[in-house]
């Protein structure tokens, strides 16, 4: 194989901000105060903040620049973290989100002075509705799990408006952990449904009864497989008076191919930070809009950006709304980036993105299937899940993942979905070229050989990073969550 891209380099160390602090140093200045100084009653005023940083601007810039070099991002290299859709984050989107009219818009601006932001939101709502086949979309939820909460509250509100009091939610065993956590937050009892990879209408029918409020599905599911019986499943749930929620985390497989709204699904959240290329930010901010059918539209959280003639406004006259889920209207800065992405790709580009995402996943599958155990043989869509069954040498998924780091890659998602023992969940996305996939596959195959011939290389990996494997058990046993605490 070619030389791996992971080679040694100089790593600069950097202490904590607080350890760098020098009394009297400062990193900002202010205009002179041009009014009289004011004083509060002494009992309201704090003492100096002990231990607060005192740094120059240069100190701060070096500090965070060095920290950044210990990270691995999509711009560093291939990041096949399954279920997270780590596609390239276009730079022009960063630029347009920073335009003063967007970045400087105060959320309490009178509507007629916020026509640019409101119109962008209405356009994005309309586009997401078209892409997903839903009647209406709210942009308010700040992330996928927040969208799930919003969607499940809408379901509960709609059922109660029909006079139906139901207590259970069905969740297949392949689901993201956020699904059951969300159902619980809406006051529901979770009923797991075994799926064996693909959920069948018969399996749903067996557990579906008049006390079930909803089924939460993910399509394609977390094994990267299309739920082929989705329409029949929705029929089963609807016939017994329930509703179907779809976790839209994997929408990147379906743009322009098929629409969840056309499958019988009632509610779905989008992840703009997955499907629509907005940056993951090291763990957010994301954006988790929710699409719903016409029947459920009255229950969307308010206010909803809307258009009346030529004027855009915030519609807050929504008596059946579940209420707000955030102080304002959602992560607007993320919406700007997503709208820029949709405007750049257009209909054909979005479809092409899904096609190439699916092509990439299947190409990796074809190259690795001879050497790695593939538990589910059905045609993959945007991601593929292997297991560590055949790894050998006493090595497990975690060791493979850590060794991939030494080769210069971000590891795939590991040990998820839970239905696959030692899962290795690879989602390449469409923005990776054939040669980056080939290099990654070469690395995977080389590691598979190492596992058999020289397992130590996996077990002691990673060796080229700033730190080696960290003691997570100790960190949890005696948590040290801030500077100045006793050492763990």
């Amino acid at each position: 194989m070619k030389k791996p891209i992971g080679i040694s380099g100089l790593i600069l160390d950097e202490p904590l901000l607080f350890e760098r602090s020098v009394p009297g140093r400062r990193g900002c200045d202010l205009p002179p105060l041009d009014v009289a100084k004011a004083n509060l009653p002494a009992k309201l005023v704090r003492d100096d903040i002990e231990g607060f940083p005192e740094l120059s601007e240069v100190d701060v810039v070096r500090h965070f620049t060095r920290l950044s070099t210990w990270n691995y991002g999509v711009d560093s290299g291939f990041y096949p973290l399954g279920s997270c859709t780590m596609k390239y984050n276009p730079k022009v989107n960063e630029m347009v989100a920073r335009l003063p009219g967007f970045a400087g818009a105060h959320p309490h601006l009178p509507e007629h002075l916020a026509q640019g932001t409101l119109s962008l939101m209405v356009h994005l709502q309309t586009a997401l509705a078209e892409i997903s086949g839903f009647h209406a979309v709210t942009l308010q939820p700040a992330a996928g799990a927040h969208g799930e909460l919003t969607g499940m509250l809408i379901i509960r509100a709609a059922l109660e408006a029909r006079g139906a009091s139901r207590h259970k939610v069905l969740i297949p065993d392949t689901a993201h952990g956020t699904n059951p956590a969300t159902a619980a937050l809406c006051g529901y009892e979770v009923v797991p449904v075994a799926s064996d990879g693909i959920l069948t209408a018969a399996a749903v029918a067996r557990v579906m009864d008049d006390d079930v409020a909803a089924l939460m599905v993910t399509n394609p599911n977390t094994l990267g497989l299309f739920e082929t019986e989705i329409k029949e499943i929705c029929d089963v749930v609807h016939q017994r008076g329930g509703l179907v929620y779809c976790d839209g985390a994997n929408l990147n497989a379906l743009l322009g191919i098929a629409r969840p709204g056309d499958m019988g699904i009632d509610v779905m959240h989008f992840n703009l930070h997955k499907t629509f290329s907005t940056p993951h930010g090291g763990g957010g901010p994301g954006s988790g809009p929710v699409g719903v059918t016409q029947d459920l539209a009255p229950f969307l959280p308010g206010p909803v950006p809307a258009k009346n003639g030529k004027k855009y406004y915030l519609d807050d006259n929504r008596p059946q709304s579940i209420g707000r889920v955030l102080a304002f209207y959602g992560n607007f800065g993320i919406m700007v980036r997503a709208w820029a992405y949709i405007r750049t790709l257009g209909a054909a580009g979005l479809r092409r993105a899904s096609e190439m995402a699916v092509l990439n996943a299947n190409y990796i599958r074809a190259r690795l299937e001879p050497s790695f155990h593939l538990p589910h043989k059905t045609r993959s869509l945007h991601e593929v899940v292997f297991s560590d069954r055949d790894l050998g040498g006493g090595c497990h998924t975690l060791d493979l993942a850590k060794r991939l780091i030494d080769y210069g890659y971000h590891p795939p998602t590991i040990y998820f979905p839970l239905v696959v023992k030692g899962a290795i969940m690879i989602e390449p996305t469409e923005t990776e070229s054939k040669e980056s996939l080939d290099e990654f596959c070469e690395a995977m195959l080389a590691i598979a050989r190492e596992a058999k011939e020289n397992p130590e290389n996996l077990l002691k990996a990673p060796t080229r990073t700033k730190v080696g494997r960290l003691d997570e058990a100790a960190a949890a046993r005696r948590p040290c969550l801030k500077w100045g605490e006793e050492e763990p």
Partner: protein
Amino acid sequence: MRYIPHTEAEVNRMLAAIGVESVTDLFGTVPATVRLKRPLNLPEPLSEAELVREFRRLAANDATASSHLAFLGGGAYDHFIPAAVDHLISRSEFYTAYTPYQPEISQGTLQAVFEFQTLICQLTGMDQANASMYDGASACAEAVLMAVRSKKRRKVLLSAALHPAYRETVATYCRYLDLDLVTLPWSNDGATDPAALEKMMDDQTAGVVVGYPNFFGVIEDLADLARPVHRHRGLLIAAVQEPIALGLLRPPGELGADIVVGEGQSFGIPLSFGGPYLGFFAARREAIRSMPGRLVGESVDRDGRRGFVLTLATREQHIRREKATSNICSNQALCALVATVYLSLLGRQGLREVAEQNLAKAAYAHRSIKAIEGFSIPFKGPVFNEFVVEAESGAEGVLTDLEQAGILGGIPLGRFYPNIPEMRGRFLVCVTEQHSKKEIDALTAALAGGGA
């Protein structure tokens, strides 16, 4: 398509390796009955140059600092952002990474979050802070859920002077949890009424939520409110909508707050029409295992080198599923980084000075407006950087007149309190370090001149 690298030759080689004829064959598992039989109806694609032009045109339809002189606060604040902030958070090793699941190649994010948690503890006077929540309102809702969880009680008191959107968000989160949310009135100083709290607090109440400063800019007497709450073994939750105040005000942790949540937008995050912002969440040490959200902790590797990891994950949804302390997964990590960079630059002296300037400028505006005929200050409580003004002629008309003069004079309060007639005459004015004396004088002159 410049983001998709595949040439047709490559596509063909890949299809051959997979063993299928065409890309369409890859979608064979999608039943014909659910396939979309037409192209999506979306606007035509734009080149990069066209896109920039189009977005500039859209953005030009919004009021900005160059078109209007604004005195808007109410949970989102215009503070100066040093240039280094955006420069540093634009390092794509930060913003194109995801949740630090692999700590060996995420030490940058992890150390920054650890620093963020420390800064939030220092500011709030609390023991432990998490890695961030979506915003102040959702953090407030999570605090209520945590109080209910840890106290196993079903009643929660919310101050009427808490930000209205925070109260609404709490109500949404609690809709189906069979809780009793009760509103605590404010007294004539604009602060939560301590006498009402004495009466309403009981042994069934899990927690009491107040703003600090509250929605009217008034600095609540937390120590006074804490007494009845603690006598009944409930939790006092302080929600900070303007965290610059923490540079000057006594930290809630010193005054008896048990959970401190808030909105971190003021720490270097652009207004951006309401988001992305930054929820923060801090609590007492003993509550750590019932906290929502991600936590970063210190550890060591095999060679004894210090490093940071996500920790106490057994509270979280991906492990505990329906028994998790919250369903939160992605939070606002990059916004937490913004706040960390901002606070590092401001530092011990700078943060205090910014807070003092906010206080001084708001006090100057407060004095000036109070002296204008036809205007009064209805609440007497001490304020930080915003305050309520009452206009004899009604708030909406005054604000419309000011707008003719290019001034956005504040937020009309009537719409937040439709059932309280006197609020129709009132508006909320916010003054920060960004306003010069001259600009404040322009506001008062316009008010005195009837807006002309």
